[in-house]
């Protein structure tokens, strides 16, 4: 029995260690004082108002959203196609292609970032928003491939064979059978891709053109001067966003599956 109590205590400690910093940010966002710290002196939303008036942050937020959506669309599309090729077809060098597709996870992000930068320099291409989209897509691609591949492996080929035998061509079969069946994985992969791009800072610092900020680089920049309570408010927004989107998605997925099957 004692062992179980110890284990419980230890588990609580681990979770506390993981979530306490996030909780601090969430709480301090509502602190009225200029120089935040505990105990909280008065609750107010003034830092949120200030945040909403800060043009630089709104610009960064817009950049991050557009960047995230673009990377998501590209990584998801490529990821689906790659997973289809890897699961449904056999070709020479399949193992090498798989390793190659997954490698952005294995390579340290800094190395990947510098590598792509040198490559673009070699092509005489300046740093640009396009480069950011390209880079973020590369980072997100392995996650989409892995998630979709796992799902696709579980979908028996006889569904597709049945559709083909009934008269559907390869493309019709994909859109009427394969795609709907792997939709949950596509959804999850797309979410992964968006969140990875939205949260990325290391590679973004290397790739962004001068003057362009995403939300993480903006926060990073602001931290260099001082710890403004605005950052806590921004942190609050980011946490709500990155947690809220997947939870909403999961809820929607559950709602749809309940009302369809």
């Amino acid at each position, binding site marked *: 029995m004692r062992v179980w109590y110890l284990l419980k205590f230890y588990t609580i400690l681990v979770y506390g260690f993981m979530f306490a910093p996030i909780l601090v940010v969430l709480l301090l966002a509502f602190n009225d004082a200029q120089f935040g710290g505990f105990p909280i002196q008065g609750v107010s939303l003034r830092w949120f108002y200030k945040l909403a008036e800060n043009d630089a942050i709104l610009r960064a937020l817009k950049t991050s959203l557009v960047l995230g959506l673009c990377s998501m669309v590209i990584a998801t599309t490529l990821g689906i196609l790659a997973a289809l090729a890897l699961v449904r077809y056999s070709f020479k060098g399949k193992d090498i292609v798989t390793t190659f597709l997954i490698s952005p996870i294995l390579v340290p992000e800094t190395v990947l970032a510098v590598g792509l930068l040198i490559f673009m320099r070699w092509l005489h291409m300046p740093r640009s928003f396009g480069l950011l989209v390209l880079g973020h897509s590369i980072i997100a691609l392995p996650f989409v491939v892995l998630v979709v591949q796992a799902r696709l492996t579980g979908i028996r080929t*006889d569904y597709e064979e049945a559709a083909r*035998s009934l008269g559907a061509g390869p493309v019709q079969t994909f859109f009427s059978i394969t795609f709907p069946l792997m939709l949950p994985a596509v959804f999850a992969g797309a979410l992964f891709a968006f969140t990875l791009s939205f949260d990325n800072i290391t590679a973004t610092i290397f790739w962004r053109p001068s003057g362009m900020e995403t939300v993480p680089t903006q926060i990073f920049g602001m931290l260099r001067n001082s710890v403004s309570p605005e950052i806590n408010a921004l942190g609050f927004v980011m946490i709500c966003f990155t947690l809220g989107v997947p939870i909403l998605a999961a809820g929607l997925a559950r709602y749809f599956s309940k009302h369809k099957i």
Partner: protein
Amino acid sequence: MAQVELRNLVKNYGVVNAVKHANIVFQDGAFTTLLGPSGCGKTTILRMIAGLETPSAGDICINGQRINDVPIHKRNLGLVFQNYALFPHKTIGENIAFGLKYRGVSKSDAVAKVKNALDIVRLPGIENRYPAQLSGGQQQRIALARAIVIEPDVLLLDEPLSALDANLREEMRIELKAIQHRIGVTSVFVTHDQSEALAMSDKIIVMSAGNVEQIGTPDEVYNRPTSEFVARFLGASNVVGSRVEKRDEISVHVTTQDLGSLLLPAANCTGLGAQATQAKIIVRSEKVILNPDPAKGVPAVIKAVDYQGQLARYFITVGSTDLQAMALIAQAPLQVGTQVGVCIDPADCIALSQ
């Protein structure tokens, strides 16, 4: 309606010959079964007809037209799978109507055709349900309805009953055969279950290791096997070695080690080479008659009994020869160790070359 013909069909997977030079004609409107153990090539043949596998050599013809290069979705075949393969995200109605979409059938016609197909498989009025809400047997009927609603030239059935439990399987095979008979579609049925094959087929093609062993009606392959493999695969058969003593137009005289000499009618010896000196004598276990009186027949001892209710299977020893005997019984089976007399009618024996 259509006749399917395979000419010298070969399929190799690397160095493995899955199908070796198959020459088969599937008659128009007939129910033909490809029967054999797993890995004998029967499913590969079905998948090649369906267009899901590409032949390594040879031709597949439907009504004389070579269809090797016709893609699956243009072949107009109905395919029924072992695991039903109903689309889980579509309703029963959408599942059945799926193939009609690609055949230019109007919405209202499709509704009528779906209704008719559901009537044929005796599951009317379930258009709006999802496959997961149906039992295995119902799902297989829907799979059949989906395959026949497109009025296919050929119906291909890949072990469609093997995922069902035993009672349902026997019920479904009677119904499946009845539906096939009613709509008269040329059907190719793949199974490893000999009783299914015997019960349903107009013609059975027995296969082993990529080769066609025998083609014939259920009665022919059961009662007139042309090889030891066919005899053994279609129910329990005894195979006994013998020496050919004398041979003429009407009969063949052979002697066995423990069962004495037998005078077989020549008609039972078509599988015996003209110059053969040795012969394999094949006799089905239900043709081995046990007489409670050891004096009436060749004396034997019962070594083991497999009691199945209305049937009993006896494992007996005659001298140094082991035999199986199957008997319909009304009372308790004979006990192990009982002395019996074995009677075998030579007319029930088939002689094959060694």
